[in-house]
């Protein structure tokens, strides 16, 4: 197996995924959960993009020297999917931040423990 580089990339991506998931489920601060979400989604983008690479290929823009030779270009489809996924990620982050603003204005905290206490006090 000469796939050491691929393994290395893949393991880094997997680590980023785990770090992001830890941020979402392990952290007690709501803003850190959003940051974890962003790390997680970015790691997914990385997973797709590294699957699109080919040795010796160029960007998928029609080039007269290569013309319609598929092997000459890197895979455009993951890029398309990730453009979509990036927009989804931006939209989710926007809504999450709006929710955090509302929560902060109401309870003056973003720490989960304090938040739960204050929610019990003022029903």
């Amino acid at each position, binding site marked *: 197996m000469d*796939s050491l580089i*691929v*393994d290395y990339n*893949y*393991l880094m991506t*997997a*680590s980023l*995924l*785990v770090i992001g*998931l*830890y941020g979402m*489920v*392990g952290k007690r601060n709501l803003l850190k959960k959003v940051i974890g979400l962003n790390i997680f989604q970015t790691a997914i983008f990385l997973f797709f993009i*590294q*699957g*699109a*690479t*080919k*040795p010796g290929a160029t960007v*998928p*823009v*029609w080039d007269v020297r290569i013309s*319609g*030779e*598929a*092997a000459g*270009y890197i*895979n*455009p*489809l*993951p*890029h*398309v*999917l990730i*453009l*979509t996924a990036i*927009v*989804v990620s*931006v*939209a*989710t982050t*926007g*809504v999450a931040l*709006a*929710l955090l*603003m*509302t929560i902060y204005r109401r309870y003056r905290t973003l720490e989960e423990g304090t938040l739960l206490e204050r929610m019990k006090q003022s029903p």
Partner: protein
Amino acid sequence: MNWITGTVLALFFGLLVYAESDLPDSREASAPARTHIVPRYVEQSYPETHTPNIVTSVLADYRGYDTLGETVVILTAGIAVILILPRSGRRQ
């Protein structure tokens, strides 16, 4: 970090590592992602759409409906923020 979180994370990492060995290597010419649909996009994109940028032609034409969907997603986020954080009362 309590033990449930730790177990979940460990299982997740384990699943990803477990799957790695059978994930096709994108550097090999026989990888399915390189042989199945993509050659069709690359070869026909310019003749069919006159657009040199293959990412654009796939994004806006071949998979144009996904792009409509993602445009709707960002619009949804805009309306959602209007709904969650009304700006009324900001002018004193």
